[in-house]
C-alpha cells in the first residue's frame, strides 16, 4: 500500500470530497484517545529539558550551540530527505527534534558544529530514513549518530570541557576527563581504582563533572524519567531493570574486590547510564513491545554496559550496549509473545 504515512488532505481527492459531504465513514472504533505521536514526542522533549538545562548551566553557551545545531540539522535533514524522495513531510511529529536533542545530549559540549551536523546526517538519514522513517528504524538513531562519531572522530568526541558555573564562563575553557574515563585511566595505569581522582558521588549526581552535555546530572535525568513514567509515556520496566542490573552486577564485583572495582553507586551516577536507561533504551521504536521483553532487553543492556565499562577498551558502554540490544529486539519480541486469551494449554 502506498502513502502509508499521513497523506495531506489537500492532495487526497477522497478526503477533499469528504469535507464536502460532511459525513465520514470508517471502520470501528469511531473514538480515539487524545494521545498521539506528536504528544508523546513532546512529553519526552519536556522530560529532557532539566538534563539539557544542567548541561547548559555547566558548559555554557557552547552547549547551547550544540543543542541548537543538532536539533536544527536533524529537522533540516529530515525535511530535505522527504522532499527529495517525494514522501510526505513528517517533521511535525516531533521525532526529528527529539532525535536532535538526544544526539546533542550525547555529545561533548565542545563538539564543533560540523561534527554535530555529521552526527545528525548519520542519525536521520542512515539510521532512520533509509529504513523507512519513523517507526521503521531498528536502531536508535541518536545513538547510531553518536557511536558513528565516537569511532570516526575519537579525539573530538572525547575532549570533555571542564564543568563550571554558567556565570563564571571564562574564555580559556580547560578540558578534563569524565569520571568513568578517569577510573579507566587509573586502573590502566595503576591497576587499582584508588588512584582515580575525586570519586565523590555528589558531583555526578548534580552534574558538576565532565561528560556529554546531557548525561552529567543524574538527578535531572531521574526527574525527567519519573515524569515520563508518571505520564505513562514509558513503563518502569526498562529503566528500573537496566539500572538494577548494573547495580547488582557491579555490586557483586565490588563486594568481592573493592580495590579493583568501583562501587555500584558510582557506576549508577557516573556516565550516561541515567540518560541511557530513561531516554535512550526506552525509545519505543527500538525496544521490545511487551513488558516481559522489555525486562529481558534491559537486563541485556545492563550486562553489556558493565562488561564494556569494566573490561572493555571504552570507558563507557551504554551506547554500545543499547545498540547491540536493539539488534536483539526482533528476537526478543518473538520469544516474549503474550499468551493469547483462551490458548489451549
Amino acid at each position, binding site marked *: *500500500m*502506498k*502513502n502509508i504515512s499521513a*497523506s495531506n488532505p489537500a492532495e487526497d*481527492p*477522497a*478526503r477533499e*470530497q*469528504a*469535507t464536502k*459531504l460532511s*459525513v*465520514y*465513514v*470508517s*471502520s470501528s472504533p469511531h473514538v480515539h484517545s487524545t494521545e498521539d505521536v506528536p504528544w508523546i514526542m513532546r512529553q519526552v522533549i519536556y522530560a529532557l529539558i532539566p538534563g539539557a538545562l544542567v548541561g547548559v548551566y555547566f558548559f555554557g553557551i557552547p552547549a547551547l550551540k550544540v543543542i541548537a545545531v543538532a536539533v536544527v540539522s536533524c529537522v533540516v535533514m529530515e525535511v530535505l530527505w522527504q522532499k527529495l524522495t517525494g514522501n510526505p513531510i513528517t517533521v511535525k511529529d516531533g521525532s526529528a527534534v527529539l532525535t536532535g536533542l538526544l544526539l546533542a545530549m550525547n555529545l561533548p559540549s565542545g563538539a564543533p558544529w560540523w561534527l554535530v551536523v555529521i552526527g545528525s546526517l548519520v542519525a536521520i538519514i542512515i539510521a532512520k530514513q533509509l529504513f523507512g522513517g519513523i517507526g521503521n528504524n531498528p536502531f536508535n538513531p541518536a545513538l547510531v549518530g553518536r557511536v558513528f562519531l565516537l569511532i570516526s572522530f575519537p579525539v573530538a568526541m572525547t575532549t570533555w570541557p571542564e564543568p563550571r558555573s554558567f556565570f563564571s564562563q571564562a574564555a580559556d575553557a580547560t578540558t578534563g576527563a569524565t569520571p568513568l574515563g578517569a577510573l579507566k585511566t587509573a586502573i590502566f595505569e595503576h591497576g587499582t581504582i584508588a588512584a582515580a581522582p575525586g570519586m565523590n558521588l555528589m558531583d555526578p549526581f548534580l552534574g558538576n563533572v565532565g561528560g556529554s552535555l546531557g548525561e552529567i546530572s543524574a538527578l535531572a535525568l531521574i526527574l525527567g524519567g519519573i515524569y515520563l513514567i508518571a505520564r505513562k509515556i514509558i513503563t518502569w520496566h526498562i529503566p528500573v531493570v537496566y539500572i538494577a542490573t548494573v547495580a547488582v552486577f557491579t555490586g557483586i564485583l565490588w563486594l568481592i574486590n573493592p580495590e579493583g572495582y568501583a562501587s555500584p553507586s558510582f557506576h549508577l551516577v557516573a556516565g550516561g547510564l541515567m540518560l541511557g536507561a530513561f531516554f535512550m533504551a526506552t525509545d519505543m521504536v527500538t525496544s521490545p513491545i511487551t513488558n516481559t521483553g522489555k525486562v529481558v532487553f534491559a537486563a541485556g543492556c545492563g550486562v553489556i554496559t558493565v562488561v564494556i565499562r569494566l573490561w572493555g577498551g571504552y570507558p563507557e558502554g551504554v551506547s554500545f550496549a543499547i545498540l547491540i540490544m536493539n539488534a536483539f529486539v526482533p528476537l526478543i519480541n518473538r520469544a516474549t509473545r503474550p499468551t493469547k486469551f483462551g490458548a489451549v494449554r
Partner: protein
Amino acid sequence: MISSILLLGGIGFLAALILGISAVTFAVKMDPREKAVLDQLPGANCGACGFAGCAAFAHEITVNPEAEMACPAVNEEALQAMSEILGRSLGGSAPLIACIRCKGSPAETTNRYGYVGPRDCRAAQIVAGGSKGCQYGCLGLGTCEEVCPFGAIIMGEDGLPHVIESLCTGCGKCVSACPRGIIQLIPRTGNYIVGCISRDTAKEMKPLCKVGCIKCGICADVCPFDAITVSKTTSAVIDQDKCRRCGLCVSACPTGVISALRVPQKARIIAEKCKGCSICEQVCPAEAISGKVKEPYFVNEGKCIGCGLCIEKCPSDAIERIIS
C-alpha cells in the same frame, strides 16, 4: 617440488577415494524428478528463491504443486524443461492482457461518503461497500498497481489505473485483487473494451456517473459482426473472438465508454501481388475497397475500418496491415 606434488596429490587422492566410497555407501534415494529439476537449476545456492539453496528449492517445487517456480536465475529453456519434468503448464495458451473496465474518474463520478482508512481498495470495500457512488466502479486506491508484480499498472492523473501493454504478462494478479471485479483479461489480439460493468439502468446511473454504459444498444446495432451484446441490466460486452477490431462501436457510443487499446491497423493492397479477383471488394463491410477486375485493387484509407476480413479472404496474400 616432488614432495609438494606428492603431498597435495596424496591428499587429493585420499579425499577422492573416501568421497567415492562414501558416495556409494551412503547413497540416499531421491525422487528422480527432484534430481532432474536440481540439474536444471543453476546450483549457485544464492538463496534468492527464499529457500536454503537449490536442493531445497527443487524439493519444494517437486513436492508442492502449488509452489511457484520462482528461481530468478534460471533461463527460459531450463524453466521449460522443469515444467516438463514436473508436468506443469507454463500457461502457454494465447497471451492475455489486463483491461480496466471502468472509466469513472473522480471528476466524472460521485461519492457516497468520505472514506477514512487504509488506502487499499479491498479494505475500502469492506467498509459500507466502498465510497464510490456507483457500486460497480473503480475505487481508485491503486490496489491493482500495488499487487502487479511487473509494474504494468499505474494510477493515472485521472485517478484510474492504466495498463502498460508492453509490461503486462496477463498473470491475473490484479484481476483477483480488484474487489470490484473491473479488471478483465482479454486476448492480446483484442483491441476494444467496454469501460463499464455496471448493472444499473441508465436512470439509476445518471446521478452516479457520466461515462458509464447506459445500455442504449447502439454499439450492438452498429457492430457488423454481432460481437457486442447488451441488455437492460448488463453493460455491453464485446466477444473478443467475434470482434474484428473495426472500431465502429467506439465512434458510435454516446458516452464514449468503449475505447481502443491501440490504433486500428488499416489494410493496404500490394499492387504487385494483386490479381484483381474482387473478392476483397465483396467482403469489405465498409465499402472501402474498389477497383477493376483483373487490375490491382486499392483501399480507401478513410473508409477502411481495419477489420481484416479482406486479408483473410485474399487468395493471393496481397493485403497487409499498415499503421495509418
